[in-house]
């Protein structure tokens, strides 16, 4: 188990040093690398389940107040939020999900540079999302007083319950935005590992799990976008 050699003249590979992903050996308690990868993914899915449940609290609050104040909800959504910003951000997140898939494909094909390029595009998309979110939504909203709950000071409310709509808007998008921020860090971590040669055809488990995390962030936005911007 511990007899892994990083330089192996017998390997028939011209005595070159093995990349970390080639030299990778699964933990001693695993039957093989496949089982280890499957278990890691199952664990990631359980975590993603808790993420879904976290956001379901916001969706539940949304559903309750939409049920009670449907007209106000409609007016507030149309008035405070521009579908163009939401649409642009949705497309950007979808693109970033696609490039994560391409990064995993590049790992399967042992193309290290393409892993890095695709993850870089993903991170740029994530950054674009946050810049649009903060620069075109959060800052103008703070300046105009379109704030949640008791902080609401906007001069021209569309109804009695605008502050509740904005409460749900702020808490759900801010929590989602925080997940995007965390995503930038974990994708950067994956880039660092990729640059050091930790991902290859036989081993890219953490890259795959970072991808799963990023996709769930995308899925949550897929629901937030129509619910907040298009109703």
């Amino acid at each position, binding site marked *: *188990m511990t*007899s*892994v*050699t990083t330089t192996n003249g*017998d*390997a*028939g590979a011209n005595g070159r040093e093995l990349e970390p992903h080639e*030299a990778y*050996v*699964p933990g001693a308690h695993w*039957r*093989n*690398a*496949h089982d280890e*990868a*499957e278990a890691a*993914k199952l664990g990631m*899915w359980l975590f*993603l*389940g808790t993420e*879904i*449940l976290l956001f*379901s*609290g916001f*969706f*539940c609050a949304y*559903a*309750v107040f939409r*049920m*009670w104040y*449907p*007209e106000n*909800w*409609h007016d507030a959504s149309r008035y405070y939020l521009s*579908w163009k910003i939401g*649409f642009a951000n949705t497309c950007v997140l*979808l693109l970033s*999900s*696609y490039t994560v*898939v391409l990064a995993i*494909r590049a790992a*399967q094909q042992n193309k290290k540079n393409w892993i890095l390029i695709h993850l870089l595009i993903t991170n740029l998309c994530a950054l674009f999302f946050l810049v649009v979110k903060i620069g075109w939504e959060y800052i103008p909203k703070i300046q105009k007083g379109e704030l949640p*709950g*008791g902080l609401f000071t906007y001069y021209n409310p569309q109804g*009695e319950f605008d*502050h509740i709509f904005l409460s749900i808007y702020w808490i759900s998008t801010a929590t989602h935005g925080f997940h995007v921020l965390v995503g930038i860090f974990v994708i950067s971590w994956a880039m660092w590992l990729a640059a050091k040669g930790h991902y290859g*055809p*036989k*081993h890219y*488990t953490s890259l*795959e799990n970072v991808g*799963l995390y990023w*996709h769930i962030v*995308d*899925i949550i936005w*897929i629901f937030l*976008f*129509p*619910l907040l911007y*298009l109703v």
Partner: protein
Amino acid sequence: MNHEIHHPTTIDPDETLSLDEAHEGGHEHHTPLGTMTWVFVILLFLTALTVWTSNIHEIVIGHSVIEIGPTPHIIMAMVIAVIKATLVAAYFMHLKYDKPMNTVVVGATMFGVLLFIGLTLADLAARGSIDRQELAPIVVGGNKHLDADGNRVDGAGVTQAARENSPDAHHGEDHGDDHSGDDHSGDDHSGDDHASDDHADDH
């Protein structure tokens, strides 16, 4: 990748399974580029579709005009969102190619979410239509529903359904609709007139 099997990266005899050619790596399924690209294009198309449908406010068939209200819009938007999420989960997140256990986890989670939201909505939607219930208004700074002089606002906090089903109509008593300070979360009046009287007396 098969030629790399000859690297004796480990000489542990117990590792034969991981060196088995058919299952050599941790990952067997290769991401199909064409399929993923199609999924991406479809996702973009569905995004455009949901924006487009959200701006349809009426459908003209011949001379009749059918107005589309907010509720059909939200249903349409949710149907499209569920399709998009399913595509992402099945293809981008590999559920289609994984062992079924991951899908079971997602299914169990979604079941929990449906219970959570469904039962909450069923509860809140049915209150007042079964028993008389309070629904305090939600106002900035808390639901005290006092007017400028500090008096309790008459009639505030009672849903329309609660008024229609009020036992007042049968008993001919004035319970007063001015139950104040109650939030609508936990107070169970459930037809108990005494509880209502206690509140009515305290102004």
